[in-house]
């Protein structure tokens, strides 16, 4: 049984963090979901569906009523739903205005709503989103302390740092169990509201909650426990998967950051898998590497541009382009393991082609910026291409490099 990760319309780049989280468990047992997969009820073979950050309205519209029904049916039959940030807002029963009404999977609401929030202290462009007759606003942006509730199965994990990038302050209803509470800002977190309101919203309030639905379970999290920048969160997610009998490994992730410093590998012998690839496979591999490197370097070229794009309700910046390019590049060496596998050549050729098209889209975007033209549409197109490229690369690794540890 695989884990479904929503990477479709409305998703921000944070869906890749779920993939990284699973990779950290030694698993590539994932399947990437578009809105049409949920609308079409194509959730067979999945044990869990994870929806992370993004434009919650965009996600809701992409899934639609059919997707909402499909999701409910999936959970009722025993599946696990895990939503963080936008994925949490999406399924709260008390978030009930269109287009969210069909998605009410858990009796919860949000405390970070106001008809007239105070002016922001920082990051005005990320501070609030219209909702109904008011705004969902964000008290802080960055790492926060989250304490697991004693007496729950997460209690043994104590307090962890996790990334809050617009997720909810949860108000759990009846039949909904609070699993973790906020315990204030971690170093590097930016306050968006004054001290008193910050304390009211981020001290002792609910950060994660769970409810049973039929045979399955719904988990919602305000912070991104899946974010690799704060690796202690991976222990929380792994424990949840363990609790729901999806992940049966005895040892949780250690919660330590990946070793900084050298990423240079020993100069290895030519990878045997690549050597078995034949000329066509090796050529396709080299093309894929080349184009992913070209994309990476061109992405770095966006670093100095002070520009933002608001796509739906989500703000995107050049650093997200760089993020995607680096995410892809970090996995390039693993493509060597795939090169000798049957069917890999075509997939590698596709990756090279997609990377080249993404670079063209990036160049188009940059040229328009230089000319002072409108760039929302080309930016949206670029991020769509990068998203699809990342999905295809991860699928290629899964299909040709092995699924790794099997999840239950």
């Amino acid at each position, binding site marked *: 049984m695989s884990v479904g990760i929503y990477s479709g319309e409305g998703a921000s780049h944070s869906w890749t963090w779920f993939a990284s989280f699973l990779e950290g468990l030694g698993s590539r047992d994932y399947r990437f979901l578009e809105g049409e997969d949920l609308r079409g009820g194509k959730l067979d073979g999945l044990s869990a569906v994870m929806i992370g950050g993004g434009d919650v309205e965009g996600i809701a519209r992409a899934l639609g009523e059919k997707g909402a029904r499909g999701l409910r049916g999936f959970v009722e039959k025993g599946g696990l739903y895990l939503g963080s940030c936008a994925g949490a807002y999406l399924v709260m029963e008390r978030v009930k205005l269109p287009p969210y009404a069909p998605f009410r999977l858990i009796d919860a609401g949000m405390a970070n709503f106001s008809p007239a929030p105070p002016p922001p202290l920082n990051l005005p462009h990320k501070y609030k989103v219209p909702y109904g007759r008011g705004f969902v606003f964000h008290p802080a942006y960055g790492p926060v302390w989250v304490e697991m509730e004693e007496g729950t199965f997460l209690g043994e994990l104590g307090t962890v740092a996790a990334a809050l990038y617009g997720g909810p302050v949860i108000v759990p209803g009846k039949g909904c169990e609070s699993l973790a509470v906020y315990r204030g800002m971690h170093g590097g977190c930016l306050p968006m509201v004054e001290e008193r309101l910050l304390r009211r919203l981020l001290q002792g309030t609910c950060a994660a909650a769970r409810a049973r639905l039929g045979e399955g379970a719904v988990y919602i999290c305000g912070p991104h426990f899946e974010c690799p920048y704060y690796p202690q969160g991976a222990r929380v997610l792994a424990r949840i998967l363990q609790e729901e009998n999806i992940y049966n490994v005895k040892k949780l992730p250690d919660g330590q950051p990946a070793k900084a410093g050298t990423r240079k590998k020993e100069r290895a012998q030519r990878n045997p898998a690549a050597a078995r690839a034949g000329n066509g496979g090796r050529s396709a591999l080299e093309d894929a590497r080349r184009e992913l490197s070209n994309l990476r370097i061109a992405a*770095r070229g966006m670093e100095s541009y002070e520009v933002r794009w608001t796509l739906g309700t989500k703000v995107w910046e050049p650093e997200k382009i760089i993020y995607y390019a680096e995410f892809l590049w970090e996995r390039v060496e693993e493509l060597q393991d795939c090169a000798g596998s049957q069917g890999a050549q075509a997939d590698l050729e596709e990756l090279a082609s997609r990377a080249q098209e993404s670079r063209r889209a990036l160049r188009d975007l940059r040229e328009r910026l230089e000319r002072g033209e409108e760039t929302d549409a080309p930016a949206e197109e670029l991020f769509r291409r990068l998203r699809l490229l990342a999905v295809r690369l991860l699928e290629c690794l899964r299909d040709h490099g092995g699924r790794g540890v099997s999840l239950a």
Partner: protein
Amino acid sequence: MMEFLYNGSILVVDLESRACEERPFPQGFAASALGGARANLALLREFPQAGLALGSGPFTGLPVPGACLSVATWREGGSFTHTPLHLFAGVELKLSGFDFVVVQGSSAEPLYLWLHDGIADLEPAAGLPRDNWEAVDSLRRELGEDLVQVLIAGEGPCLGLGYWASADRVGLGRAWREMGLRAVCARGLGILDAADPEGFAGACADLVGEVRASLPEGRHGLEGILGLLRGKDCDYPLPLLHRRRSCFACPYDCNDFLKTEEDPSLMGQEGEEEPGMLLTDARSLGLLEEAGADLREGVRLLRWASRLGAFPAGAAKAGTQAAEEELLAAGPEGWEREEGPFSSWAPPLPLPGGADRKERQALGYTLGICPLLMMLSPALTPQALCDLLEKGMELEISPEELVGLCVEAAG
């Protein structure tokens, strides 16, 4: 096998067949060849058909003071010349994943070599503009990054480092064009490892302090170099000076950016696309001064020379009224050159403590340290460099052995 201070990679480029082949270091290569000029010579002996080797030193790209250098070694007939590639070009070359690049053959169609993430591509260059600056812009637009370092061979004899004049005084620019090599582009996002990372970093930090303290007091920029040569403060006024710029990891800021089209006292940009010129050569500044040239016109001349690929000192000698043909035909007009293969770009500075110039240059050209800093700072002793080699790459070598090996490259 893991290499320290290096990627462990030699690239062999054949312009005729358009093939690029990466080879790992042979066993013991770094320890015996060391790097830079010395290693380039070893590679050119191994590849007798090759005319060009671009080589980094063990310290290139590391936080060793002045460690900006890669070296272009050119074979012409039976003799060799070594040209420093400074500013940031030498570092990007190494961090692109290739420590050494050997180039052989020639191409009827102009090509450019693109080095990135351990990948080497030969791409058509026929469509690049004639003007060096426009060609650099075109390449950076194509590759998507303004930080891509470009070694550009223009119409003139002098190789360019991006927009600026290189230390080429033998006509690499012309030679590359004749080979069909219009440019070498590099972007380095790689990482280099030291055998003892903490020990190496600590030794580098200590050495930076010592080098800073050893530099001639109160001297800055090219005007400081000229002052040292004349035994006094430079009396050539630089009212157009906007800022000085160091090469990678160098505590001496020897490059002067002069603004000719905007107010140099204003730090921000005022909208001029080409507000001035980075001068990288003390000789050309000195020649302009000796000729009594108007500074603004002189710097404009040097900018034009850079766009053409003319030798900067040759252009300065030709004068502000020179026509394009004169600039292109002008010779290098380097400092009086000693016997030996090193570029005449580095000025004949008085060396403290009677140090040997050939020895100082040879150390710099082999280890990847700017030869100018090697002459300015007595703190870069063979002993200090041996200490860094031990901590950096577990190479145990005495100062005498090190000097001997390096001086071999001087012929």
